[in-house]
């Protein structure tokens, strides 16, 4: 067995997989060689139930990161205190190596869309979302990783490029970046911007994790479906990023038409190969 790059309580390393319910049993029975599992925070915020116990069991064998969709960091609604309480309890229970959320809003006027909706790229919005990220970091007592989302619309009000907006938020909130390369590629195609200049605008020292997933080509746009293997242009972008910034901890996500675990392990092996080739 190849020695595993150890992820520790403090830092992630290597290549992780997004934890999905259809794989619970396989993971517990066969303990695949995976550097860490990323659990979708929102599935583990209930008062009790079997999902929490499964995650306890998996946490016994692997480092865990928590990846959320419900904080609605960019919203103009007050931060949801019940959600923050539940998130705090989940952090205390599962001791995640990293806690991440999306740079987006999901709610307005007290109503939730359950969708990662993009923000206008304005200076006002930078200040707004950065203040909320700081408030959450203070409340949780730890740094957040913020992920760039894929998007299908852009706003006439935007004054900054997406990369400028992202960099400004990271700086003003003093948080880290979870760079989703599939989202970056999807948005670059949908909005016709250059990936290279996007990367140039990012603060390298804040890129702490990478996400990889598959999109679906809908002809007139790319859909961030997470239902296919990682596509060649995204692997190529990954190789560029790894050569430029080193073997940043990287994670494979798959959410629709979820295949058996071995398919995901093969995807993780491809990412490891790219990491090792760049080393």
């Amino acid at each position, binding site marked *: 067995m190849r020695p595993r790059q150890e992820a520790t309580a403090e830092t992630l390393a290597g290549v992780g997989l997004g934890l999905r319910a259809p794989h619970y049993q396989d993971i517990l029975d066969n303990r695949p060689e995976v550097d860490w599992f990323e659990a979708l925070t929102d599935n583990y915020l209930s008062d009790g139930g*079997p999902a929490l116990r499964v995650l306890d069991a998996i946490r016994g064998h692997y480092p865990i990161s928590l990846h959320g969709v419900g904080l609605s960091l960019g919203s103009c609604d007050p931060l949801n205190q019940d959600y923050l309480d539940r998130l705090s309890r989940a952090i205390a229970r599962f001791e995640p190596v990293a806690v991440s959320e999306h740079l987006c809003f999901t709610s307005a006027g007290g109503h939730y869309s359950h*969708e990662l909706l993009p923000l206008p790229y304005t200076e006002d919005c930078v200040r707004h979302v950065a203040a909320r990220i700081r408030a959450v970091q203070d409340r949780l007592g730890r740094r957040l990783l913020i992920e760039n989302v894929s998007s*299908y619309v852009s706003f006439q009000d935007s004054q900054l490029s997406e990369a400028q907006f992202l960099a400004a938020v990271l700086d003003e909130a003093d948080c880290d970046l979870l760079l989703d390369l599939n989202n970056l590629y999807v948005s670059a195609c949908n909005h016709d911007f250059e990936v290279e200049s996007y990367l140039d605008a990012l603060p390298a020292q804040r890129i702490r994790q990478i996400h990889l997933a598959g999109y679906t080509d809908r002809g007139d746009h790319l859909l961030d479906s997470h239902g296919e293997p990682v596509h060649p242009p995204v692997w190529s972008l990954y190789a560029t990023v790894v050569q430029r910034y080193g073997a940043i901890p990287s994670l494979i996500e798959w959410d629709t038409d979820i295949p058996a675990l071995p398919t995901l392990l093969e995807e993780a092996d491809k990412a490891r190969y790219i990491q090792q080739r760049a080393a």
Partner: protein
Amino acid sequence: MKTLAELQGEFLAAVWRGDTRLEAALTRSPTQTAAQRLAVYRSSVLGSMIGAMADAYPVIQALTGETFFAATVGRYMAGHPSTSPDLHVYGAGFAQFLSRFEPARDLPYLPDIARLEWAWHRAFHAADQSPQDLSQLAALSPAQQASLRLRLAPGLVVIRSVYPILEIWQANRSEPGRAAAISLDQGGVQLIVSRPGTAPEVHAVDAQTAQFLDRAAAGATLGELAATCPEATAGLAGLVQRAWIIGFKANESKPTSGPA
């Protein structure tokens, strides 16, 4: 220039109910209109909500078919915004909605099935049970015992229906379509939904046991329960065995409301 809150409100209205106000605030694209771009979000939101409702209401979906179910969820969404980031709590009002939903009136048992499925869904996510040590009970005097109130399992729900919903529910969880062979005239049922271990369980009980658990949930003392539901009270040990009753509390004020 709209405020951020206005933009976000319009975005929510666009993805939830197809409102078009946001279109004017979006940039033009050579390949897609603003409406087409928003439709990507709208379709994703519909897909998530239909998926979440199908997770909570798989038997309603089996009974009505995927197309009818999806359209019904769309109609439900129009009058029911999601008010929590937790997707698992969306759909609480579906039974009541179905009871007034004209296109579903040929399936009169549908609202009761929905109540059963919602109870099962909530029990799945309910707090884990921590049964109390009941041995101390024997040391209490009869008067002390009569003043005790009961602690019910978290997530326990009592459901009554004039239809044989347990049979319909069981048949459509395992073999969708078999419900046609179930006679609706065979009478109603009282069900207890709870999660004693890993998986939620559904059990049929007699009317007095259902009444006992309802009153216990509403805060009746053991003495009051013995007076109104004597047989069920005599069978208390069995209810503890089932983990429907998980403890006792002494000398507390009556709760203002029991579990739904």
